[in-house]
């Protein structure tokens, strides 16, 4: 039975080999074993690895011709001397270990004559480096096997491998030379006694545009070290590359650099002006959504207009209110099909109010828009279908300002009736009433943690209210005119307020006192914005300038003409009346305003 099986296996194998056109199989099949035990496999594998091509060279004990050592070494040396290029220097570092080990090998084999001539010819090459010189001097005395074995240092050299670091380019350069001719002795020494560490070439010196910075040249250089140096020999130890203290120093250096940049001057690089033309003096307010895709503007003729700031046009979603049809899943496919065609429009006009629109506010995910108007109502516009879906009633007088809370849970309004009110999106009546101002409330803002609301009023005060309880928790006095605009810093520490008295006041919320009072504007300040890292404040005023202040350190220039020292820059664009200023990222400032009229009225 077993024999039949073996025959079957043999037959199958022969057929396969025939199909694959391994022709002369019949003879070799007799001796082929069809099964192997694990030990046999392991043994055969070790035999194979030991007797592979690399080891053929190492197994050869002595060269037939002792002159070969000298010839090959001198050839290599002259090649490296004559060649040019940046790699030659690296490759030349391999000469010393080659010399050393060739000498030792010749001493061990007892080739005294060849050794003498070899030594006398080449020992002068290595006199520069003190360590190499010391070893060369040692070699002078080592001429026989006895000398080599009695000297412990030389024994150590023989027992361990010499490590050479080369970049891969230098290494391949060397190999190419060695393969071009018969350099078997050198190859043997390379495999037996040298360990070549090949490292990839590092590119760490990126040039700045034109301005060459010379300190960046840290291309890794080759170095030779003794591997596993005997500790008691002490004196021979060369420097250990990349030890632990070096890394810590580099880390400290890096962190110091980072710290200095973080505390350094701000990095505003781009100011983007959106100028409205042909507004006929009807434009009251303009806002950009947080993802900077939409621009909303409120007009005196009760219209709210939306612009798309990106390439994609505004397209209303499908109208879903048809109750005479049942919508199936296959209907959805047809609607999704035409998503990419250009049937949208750049501007959408939203009509619904019956009085001038004084403020628009986007929700944080830009899925909806709130607008408040003189007709004492607040309307919610759904931005998928561009229709007015909710009407919020509660005030009896014009509503001046509306603000949405950070997570779009609530919104608050400020009105002529001297109150501010808190609303939720789900109810059309207000949830809380904040009464306490002596005159109408001009602006309202939520704190980043949604627990506090700040209001500024014509009675020249700013009040801070607790959202839930409705009680006033802080009263900030000091302004000399109506407070028209407020802004909270994103880190929640400061409140900025400004208005007709042309001063920007920063209040510290923890202590309740005035933190900074910035001068510089020459007319009413109409809009404020903090940058995301709470270090910059931008203020826009009716004197047609936008000023940026650094509130952390006084990085600005020396105070000129009465401006505060925190002023970093002052910008005027193509607008004649600035409505709104917003920080989009720490290096982008968006300014909206009416364009300059060509004719003066």
């Amino acid at each position, binding site marked *: 039975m077993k024999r039949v099986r073996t025959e079957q296996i043999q037959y199958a194998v022969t057929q396969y080999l025939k199909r694959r056109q391994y022709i002369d199989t019949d003879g070799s099949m007799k001796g082929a074993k069809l099964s192997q035990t694990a030990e046999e496999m392991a043994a055969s594998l070790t035999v194979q690895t030991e007797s592979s091509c690399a080891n053929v060279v190492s197994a050869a004990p002595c060269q037939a011709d002792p002159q070969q050592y000298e010839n090959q070494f001198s050839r290599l040396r002259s090649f490296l001397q004559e060649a040019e290029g940046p790699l030659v220097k690296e490759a030349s570092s391999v000469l010393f270990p080659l010399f050393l080990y060739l000498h030792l090998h010749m001493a061990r084999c007892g080739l005294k004559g060849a050794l003498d001539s070899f030594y006398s010819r080449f020992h002068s090459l290595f006199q520069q480096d003190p360590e190499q010189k010391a070893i060369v001097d040692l070699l002078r005395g080592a001429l026989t096997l006895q000398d080599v074995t009695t000297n412990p240092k030389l024994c150590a050299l023989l027992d361990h491998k010499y490590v050479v670091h080369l970049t891969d380019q230098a290494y391949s350069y060397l190999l190419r030379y060695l393969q071009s001719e018969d350099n078997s002795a050198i190859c043997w020494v390379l495999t037996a006694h040298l360990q070549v560490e090949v490292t990839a070439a590092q*590119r*760490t010196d990126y040039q*700045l*545009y034109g301005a060459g*910075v010379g300190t*960046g040249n840290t291309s890794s250089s080759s170095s030779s070290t003794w591997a596993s140096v005997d500790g008691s020999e002490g004196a021979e130890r060369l420097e250990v590359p*990349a030890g632990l203290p070096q*890394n810590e120093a*580099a880390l400290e*250096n*890096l962190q110091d*650099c*980072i710290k*200095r*940049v*973080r505390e*350094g001057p701000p*990095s505003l*690089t*781009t*100011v*983007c002006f*959106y*100028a*409205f033309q*042909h507004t006929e*003096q009807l*434009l*009251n307010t303009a806002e950009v959504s947080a993802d900077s*895709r939409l*621009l909303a503007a409120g*007009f*005196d003729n009760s219209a709210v207009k939306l612009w798309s700031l*990106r390439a*994609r046009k505004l397209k209303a979603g499908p109208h879903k209110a048809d109750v005479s049809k049942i919508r199936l899943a*296959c209907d959805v*496919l047809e609607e999704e099909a035409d998503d990419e065609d250009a049937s949208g429009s750049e501007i959408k006009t939203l009509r619904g109010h019956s009085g*001038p629109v004084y403020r628009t506010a986007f929700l944080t995910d830009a899925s909806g828009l709130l607008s408040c108007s*003189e007709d004492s109502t607040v309307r919610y516009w759904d931005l998928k279908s561009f229709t007015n879906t909710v009407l919020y009633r509660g005030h009896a*007088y*014009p509503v*001046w300002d509306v603000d949405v809370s950070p997570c779009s849970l609530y919104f608050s309004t400020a009105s002529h009736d001297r109150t501010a009110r808190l609303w939720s999106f789900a109810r059309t009546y207000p949830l809380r009433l904040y009464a306490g101002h002596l005159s109408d409330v*001009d602006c309202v803002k939520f704190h980043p943690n949604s627990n506090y609301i700040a209001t500024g009023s*014509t009675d020249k005060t700013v009040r801070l209210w607790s959202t839930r309880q409705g009680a006033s928790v802080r009263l900030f006095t000091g302004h*000399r005119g*109506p407070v*028209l605009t407020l802004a909270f810093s994103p880190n929640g520490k400061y409140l900025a307020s400004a208005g007709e008295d042309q001063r920007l006041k920063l209040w510290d919320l923890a202590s309740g006192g005035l933190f900074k009072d910035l001068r510089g504007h020459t007319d*009413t300040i*109409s809009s404020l914005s903090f*940058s*995301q*890292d709470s270090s910059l404040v931008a203020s826009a005023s*009716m004197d047609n300038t936008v000023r940026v202040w650094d509130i952390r350190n006084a990085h600005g220039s020396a105070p000129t003409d009465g401006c505060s020292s925190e002023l970093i*820059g002052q910008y005027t*664009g*193509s607008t004649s*009346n600035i409505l709104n200023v917003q920080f989009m*990222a*720490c290096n*982008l400032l968006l300014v909206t305003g009416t364009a300059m009229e060509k004719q003066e009225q």
Partner: protein
Amino acid sequence: MTEREERRFAEVPRESVKLMAESAGVELSEELAGLLAEDVCYRLREATQNSSQFMRHAKRRKLSVEDFNRALRWSNTETVCGYGAQDALPFRPLKEGELFYVEDREINLVELALATNIPKGCAETMVRVHVSYLDGKGNLEPQGTVPTAVQSLSEDLLKYYQQITRAILGEDPHLMKVALLDLQSNSKIAALLPYFVYVISGVKSVSHDLDQLNRLLHMVKSLVQNPYLYLGSYVRSLVSSVMYCILEPLAASINPLNDHWTLRDYAALLLSHIFWTHGDLVSGLYHQILLSLQKVLSDPVRPLCSHYGAVVGLHALGWKAVERVLYPHLPAYWANLQAVLDDYSVSNAQVKADGHKVYGAILISCPLVLVLIIRLTFQVIFITSRTLEQSIQRHFP
């Protein structure tokens, strides 16, 4: 401000009040006239204050009659009518006394109606964008200049740039992590953005070194994830570097031991991340990306690793991309791929391994295509059932 507070308010004299009363046919005593005068003054001041609020919130400086009318409306008073004309009313003086009267002009309505010069309506409101760049000192550069790359950077920033690049591309992994973390969270590095983008565009010269490519991709990821940084037009350059990693047959891929497949996967994920967060900063980016991916797929001369990169890139961009680019191309491509996979010769072994990778990538993006097929079949079923129903109704009313 204090000046205004000290100024006395305008007062209406009693004589005017009495005159007004006489013209209305009412007799008033002195006291009454005095009281009325005070009240009138107060109401005037209140109306003016309210109208100034309207003016302030409309961001104007000139008080208009509309503002005043609104204030009156909210006080439940009759508004003043007859104002708003373009030219001022002409007052003519009477010869005797200090009386002025408004001239009553006659207007020929027929002429007005048949006049041929129709006044132009107002143009529609439009928005113009103007972007200004700031130079190193924070001043606006003159209009129309392109931002110069060589700005005067401060020494701190220069040192930071060198240290960070060295740390990321160097050998210490801990330093690299610290550097990448800082790139992701530092708000002050906007001025260095062109320099970092230049470093990243050096992918083209390190295509033999997978480790360096990986690090450069990490750098792209950090920059893209920095919430304080506005990338602007540098998105294009970053996307082209990432596309290079996805599509190019890298020099490192010659050695089959180098794992350039994970690099391509990582680059594809990064591409989708950049596209979904910053994709609409640059117009037409989506189409450009799709076009280049399509070009690679339809080119049989390109090695299979490029095709793999294209398929993985499409998969990362979403099922719409797969549907638009891969699906129509699939039948033709499949034939070629089958030929590669069926060829069992030894010389083809490496290419065949690559072919298997592409096959796998197509299978992964295929479920999305399968969804499409299922949807289409449902559509077909629905349509046929509807037509059946209609025909039944026609025959058996």
